[in-house]
């Protein structure tokens, strides 16, 4: 009995492991824009003005949305090219997979199939049968 419980807990996907990690994942994945205009004036004279335009995101999201990287960053590496491929999280196993492949074929990790892929498969079988 204990073994069975152990099994079921070890099988839970890792992405459920921690709420904080999940929260950070989300923020980095969605990206965060922080814009602020701050002015300070003394005796009616504007003394200091601060204008902040900040964007916070993971490397992948930053690359996708075309944020500028510090000068000297080599954007020709394999990792950048990989980041530019549109990815989606597999609803079953949670791995990030090329969204075209996931949608049109299946998840290469767990074999999950989308409704579209199933429909296509069905249509394909029908065509063959005719």
């Amino acid at each position, binding site marked *: 009995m204990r073994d069975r419980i152990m099994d079921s807990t070890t099988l839970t996907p890792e992405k459920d492991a921690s709420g904080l990690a999940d929260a950070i994942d989300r923020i980095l994945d969605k990206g*965060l824009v922080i814009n602020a205009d701050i002015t300070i004036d003394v005796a009616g004279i504007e003394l200091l003005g601060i204008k902040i*335009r900040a964007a916070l995101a993971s490397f992948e999201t930053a690359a996708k949305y075309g*944020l500028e990287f510090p000068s000297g960053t080599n954007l020709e590496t394999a990792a950048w090219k990989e980041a530019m491929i549109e990815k989606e999280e597999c609803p079953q196993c949670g791995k990030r997979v090329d969204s075209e492949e996931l*949608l049109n074929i299946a998840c290469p990790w767990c074999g999950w199939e989308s409704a579209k892929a199933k429909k296509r498969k069905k249509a394909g079988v029908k065509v063959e049968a005719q």
Partner: protein
Amino acid sequence: MVILRPEETGLKELLDRVLDKGVAVDTSVRIDLGSINLLGAKAHIILASFKTAEKIGLDFPEGTNLNTLAWQHLTTKQPCPVCGMESKSKELKEEGCPWCGWNHRPDER
């Protein structure tokens, strides 16, 4: 054995909401001495996810390339009401969700 962790889904939901709706902070402080305006401070701060920022027209830092594919997808893709996965609005409306198969059934309306 299913273990539900309500506090975690709560945090996730909260974060999603905050990011999607955006947060605006608008403050002004004034300190007067007698009738002389001694010190004044104004702050307009806004915080939002990329998607919301684009929707409400926030400025992005200089040098941002606003012509990438991801920007176009923000306006052409929509989440499915059942599974939440994003797909092209037209496809979702006309053929149903390509991810979960949800369909709003135009025949039965």
